[in-house]
């Protein structure tokens, strides 16, 4: 079923999302081991996060700070007190036989995200919890357990069942990711597994009774969320249309086969036996403390976009592109401190610099891989704006900046790309280009300005990038019209 058919005619789709997001702390939630992705297995593990007998959790205050930032950035209600509970189940990647999570007194309730179309997606709650370790099943005859991730701090944001299509789910996730990144809560890097989703989905006929809910677990990319939802909605609709009934169950999405499969049914649903963790005293959330956290939240994407449009004169399109990630927006602002031309800067960032990332030859894919600094780009843009270098010349300099650690100004000189403002030289190039192109000149004289393009190219070629196309055009017109 193609996305265009969702929700299918005559059907209503109800979706809720649970998003797990790793917090950008230095250390784990309850111990001083590093919270860092990619270390050799079992090298960031201590007595606490490996569940040694007698070890006790020590709550990381920075996780509270970041959790509260998320709560406030999402406009949630923060209670006067919160506490931790134990959630019990047995699995090889869960060292204590329970996960420290929050049950009936979560970090916050309510809040939500307004989607572009005006829909408001309500959040039920956000709570803090520890991540489990990682079990690897595709190596050898045994399953292997790495506990580096065990105890990494997470927030889980749970929506109300307010979403009605996979596209809305996607839009919500993009917005959530933006907000969490901008608030400094999380890197939200799906490749590193720092953002993961479970979805709940049911279908019902328009005006019909509520459908039976199916949960799909552990979706680790936005594309997988959409694909899993599309598949699952189609499956449920077909099932009901064929006279069947949807079973309440938990399913897993197989990203390769692009299908969902039963993981467990309601009969063997877990009984997690939550109870308050006696090792962790309650946390009080005094108003003043919460307000101090609020004052530390960096400007969020919506506010930045608004400011870029109102104060800097960026188009909505450019403002949106610049704020598509915290990194991009921060980069832009760093460059802006060295520039008086925000629009040109945004334009360069969104077009010329972005183009580098899709060129394999550039060797860079993200802003933080760029070998030059924001002020270098500001200088380059300034050179182009002042006419010291043509746009084509500036593009050449930009690529040179990838290879050599020199200022744009120096590269311009070294590459001989300084734009010529010598009118006599320009006229010589134009005259040379006109030789043997009388037909074109005649067309231009007859009023066909479009024909001029066939002359500009050769001039620019002769000038080797030093000529400004606008000046070339003017000179050509003058020469053709005043013989």
């Amino acid at each position, binding site marked *: 079923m193609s996305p265009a058919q969702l929700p299918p005619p005559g059907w209503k789709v109800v979706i809720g999302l649970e998003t797990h997001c790793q917090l950008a702390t230095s250390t784990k939630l309850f111990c001083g081991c590093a919270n860092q992705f990619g270390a050799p297995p079992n090298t960031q593990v201590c007595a606490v996060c490996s569940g040694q*007998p007698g070890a*006790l959790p020590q709550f990381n205050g920075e996780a509270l700070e970041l959790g509260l930032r998320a709560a406030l950035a999402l406009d949630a209600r923060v209670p006067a007190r919160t506490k931790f509970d134990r959630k*019990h189940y047995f699995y090889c990647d869960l060292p204590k036989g329970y996960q420290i999570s929050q049950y009936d007194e979560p970090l916050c309730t309510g809040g939500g995200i307004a989607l572009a179309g005006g829909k408001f997606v309500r959040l039920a709650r956000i709570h803090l919890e520890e991540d489990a370790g990682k079990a690897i099943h595709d190596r050898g005859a045994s*399953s292997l357990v790495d506990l580096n991730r065990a105890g990494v701090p997470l927030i889980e944001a749970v929506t109300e069942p307010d979403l009605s299509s996979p596209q809305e789910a996607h839009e919500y996730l993009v917005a959530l990711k933006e907000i969490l990144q901008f608030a400094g809560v999380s890197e939200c890097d799906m490749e590193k597994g720092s953002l993961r989703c479970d979805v709940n989905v049911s279908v019902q006929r328009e005006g019909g009774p509520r459908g039976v809910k199916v949960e799909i677990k552990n979706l680790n990319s936005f594309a997988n969320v959409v694909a899993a939802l599309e598949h699952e909605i189609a499956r449920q609709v077909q099932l009901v249309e064929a006279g069947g009934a949807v079973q309440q169950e938990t399913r897993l999405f197989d990203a390769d086969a692009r299908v969902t499969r039963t993981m467990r049914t309601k009969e063997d649903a877990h009984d997690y*036996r939550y*109870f308050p963790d*006696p*090792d962790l005293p309650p946390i009080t959330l005094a108003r003043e403390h919460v307000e101090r956290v609020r004052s530390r939240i960096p400007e969020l994407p919506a506010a930045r976009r608004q400011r870029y449009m109102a104060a800097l004169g960026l188009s909505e399109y450019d403002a949106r592109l610049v704020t598509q990630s915290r990194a991009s927006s921060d980069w832009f602002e760093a460059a802006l401190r060295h520039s008086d031309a925000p629009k040109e800067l945004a334009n360069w960032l969104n077009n010329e610099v972005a183009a580098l990332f899709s060129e394999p030859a550039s060797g860079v894919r993200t802003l933080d891989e760029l070998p030059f600094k924001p002020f270098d780009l500001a200088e380059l843009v300034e050179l182009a704006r002042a006419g010291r270098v043509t746009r084509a010349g500036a593009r050449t300099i930009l690529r040179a900046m990838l290879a050599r650690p020199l200022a744009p100004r120096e590269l311009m000189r070294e590459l001989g790309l300084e734009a010529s403002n010598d009118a006599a030289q320009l006229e010589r190039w134009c005259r040379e280009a006109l030789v043997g192109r009388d037909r074109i000149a005649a067309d231009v004289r007859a009023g066909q300005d479009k024909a001029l393009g066939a002359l500009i190219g050769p001039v620019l070629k002769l000038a080797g990038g030093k000529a400004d196309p606008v000046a070339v055009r003017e000179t050509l017109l003058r020469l053709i019209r005043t013989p």
Partner: protein
Amino acid sequence: MSRSGAEPFADRALERAPERTLEQALARVAEFNGRLGAFASIEAQRARAIAAAQAEVEASAQPLRGLSFAVKANLCWRGVETNAASAVLAGYRAPYSATAVERALASGATPLGVTNMDEFGFGSSGENSALGPTRNPWDLSRSPGGSSSGAAAAVAAGLVDFALGSDTGGSVRQPAALCGVSGFKPSYGRIPRWGLIAFASSLDCVGILAREVERIERVLAALSGEDPRDGTSLAEPPLTPLAPRSLRGLRIGVPREHFEAGVDPRVAQCVRAALAHCEREGALVRELELPHTRYASPCYYVVASAEASSNLARYDGVRYGARVEGDGTLQGMIEATRSRGLGPEARRRVALGSFVLSSGYYEAWYVHALKVRRAIARDFERAFESVDVLVGPTSPTLAFELGARTEDPLAMYAADVLTTPASLAGLPALSTPCGLVREGSADLPVGMQWIGPAGADALVLACGAAWQRASEHHRALPPLHASASAS
């Protein structure tokens, strides 16, 4: 009745000729342990190395310098097998040390070995141990009590100057009473729990056993104080002992319920005689009521089992300890490891705890019990409005024969009825010897329990010390005692 002569306090310290006395101490442990089963392991090499390192440090910086001690098998001691007397932790060597062990070592005390116990603290007789039972030095056919069975027997037999125990519902006080030594359970959080293998986290306390209460005061001063690694430890500096006081003017409350049904009349009589003695010393003794006392035991077993079921969930055969492969699946391995690795009482508690926390029963069992717990704590708060301390028997019975209660869990649970109330409320409580009762051919000790208001650890210990200055009962030595040894 055997009595030692006047024993000047701390005269058995290892100070005068440390190497020689340490070797003597180790030799005595080796000699006696075959009969007592008090030690799970004797750590002679480590003891020598530790004593040598301690000798390098200025003695004045080591308030416990020269004292020998023993570590209960549920307190982590880096590199030493710390198996909590459970087969599921067979071979487990902790990669770190408990705060209590660390602080004792830093204070100059020398550990001789690891003591036997009821598995994870589940029991009141020492018999629920994968290592076999411990025997009572007063009568080797009897239990020393539990769960700090080995600790109490080792102190009673004079093998160590003090012992570290743990007390969740009476596990230091009850064996101290049955072995005729002093045993102290501090206020909840006084000694940090870091490194104490958890049984029931909201009840577990590291405790201290010694013959003299003054020695317990010294040890507590060294072990207490906040530890950032235990977020529930009391946010207070180490405790300083109070200046010695007498019993004059002390307002002692005697809970009527602590002398009721189930208390052996000989035990009751012995404690009443001790109270009369206190009165003669100038204490103001009056009866009062703790009306919820009879609910303490069921309340305790609901709460403690619930927490135990959670705390023991980590024994899954994945990361440490024993593994039983079972049917070859992960969940089968976990089930086989737990079923074979945990002893019968541990399995019963874990099953009970899982039951009271499970969906549909949680409010009616667990939360209800926590409300009863509040009522029990209120009883104490009310009592302490009019008295300074409460005194009654520690154990309702004398030391019982090994095997007498192993078939009946409820009979075993009855051993805690007088100690669980203070545990539920988190109060400091001390058991001190208060006499002997002749049974058959044996003299058996009776202990009196001193309970103080929350945080009043120093007061409780000062009372116990005053009692010991006014009485001789703690000087009574069992037939099996190191002072009788030739070596």
